[in-house]
C-alpha cells in the first residue's frame, strides 16, 4: 500500500460550473481513487461529479519563475472586461 500512487481530486459542486481541486489521496488505480474520493471528499454533499488524475501527470509551473510568469499582468487592468457594458444575457463573467 506504500506503493499506491497519489491522485489529485477535483469536484464539481451542484451549482458549480467547473471542477475544483479539493485535495489528494492514495489509491491502487483510478477506479479506486474515484471510490476513495467519493468517501473522503463528498460525505457532506460537496459534489456531483468527481475527476481524479495521477499527481505525476500534472505539470506545474515553476515557483521560481513566478515573477516573470505572473508579475507582467499586474499593471494591465485594461485586460479585465470592466470597461465594457455587458449584455444581461451574458452569464458567468
Amino acid at each position, binding site marked *: *500500500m506504500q506503493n*499506491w500512487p497519489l491522485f489529485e481530486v477535483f469536484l464539481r459542486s451542484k451549482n458549480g460550473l467547473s471542477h475544483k481541486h479539493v485535495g489528494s*489521496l*492514495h*489509491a*491502487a488505480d483510478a*477506479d*479506486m481513487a474515484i*471510490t*476513495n474520493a*467519493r*468517501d*473522503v471528499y463528498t*460525505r457532506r454533499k460537496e459534489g456531483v461529479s468527481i475527476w481524479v488524475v495521477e499527481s505525476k501527470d500534472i505539470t506545474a509551473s515553476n515557483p521560481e519563475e513566478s515573477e516573470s510568469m505572473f508579475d507582467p499582468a499586474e499593471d494591465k487592468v485594461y485586460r479585465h472586461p470592466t470597461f465594457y457594458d455587458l449584455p444581461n444575457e451574458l452569464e458567468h463573467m
Partner: protein
Amino acid sequence: MGEVIQLNNESLLKYVLQLADNAMILGQRLAETCGHGPVLEQDIAITNISLDLIGEARVLYQYAAEIEGGGKTEDDYPYKRDVRDWQNILLVEQPNGHFGHIIMRQFMFDCYHYCHLKAMIDSSDERLAQIAAKTIKEATYHLKYSSEWVIRLGDGTEESHDKMQEALNDRIRFFDEAFIPSKIENEESLNGIKVDCVAIRKLAWAKFQEICQTATLEIPEVKFPQKGGKDGLHSEHFGYLLSELQFLQKSYPNSNW
C-alpha cells in the same frame, strides 16, 4: 376485532425489529474498526458504511416505536434489550477478524441487503416501502464497494487471494440464514408487507457467485448452514458486542446528553 389488529401490530413490530437489528449490529461491528482501517481512505469508507447502516436502523427503530406506542423511543430497542430479544442474522455479529473477513462479511450482507431492499420497495406497507426506496441507494454503493474489494483482493496477490479464500471458507456457513424464513417471516398476516426471503435468494446468490468467480474464489459447499439468530439464538460473540454497545445504559440507566 380489536384483538386481531393487536396481533397484526405485534407481528409487524417484530418484523421491523428484525430488519433494524441486522443494520444496527453490522453498523456496530463496523464502528469497532473506526481508526483501525488499513489506510485512511478505507477507514473513512468503512465508517461511512457503518453510519449508513446505523441511520437505516434508526428509521426502522423509530417506526417500531410508533407501532408499539406506550412512550417507546428508538433508543429503547438497541440499548434496553437483552440477547434473546435480538433478531439479527448470525453473519452480522461475527467478529471483524482481518480486513478480508470484514470485506467478505460485508459483501455477503450487501448481496442480501440489496436484493431485500429491492423487493421491499414494493411492500404494501407504505413506510417500509419508503425506507427501502431511500436506503437502496446506499446499499447499491455498499455492494459496489465490497464487490470491488472482493475482486481486487481475491484476484490480487497470492497472499491476498489466500486471505480472501480463508474469509470465504470461514463465513460462507452464515450466508444462507438470511434466506431461511424465521417464524415471523412465515407469518401469514404479513403477506404483502414482508419480503419473501426465499424468493430473493436466487438473485442474491447469482450476484454472490458472479463476483466470487471474477475474484477467482471457490465457494465451498455448506452442509449445515448456521441459523437461529433471527429467532433470538445468537453466537457467543454477541453478548460481548452487546455489553459494549449497551455499556452506558447499563452502568448509568436512563442517562441522557
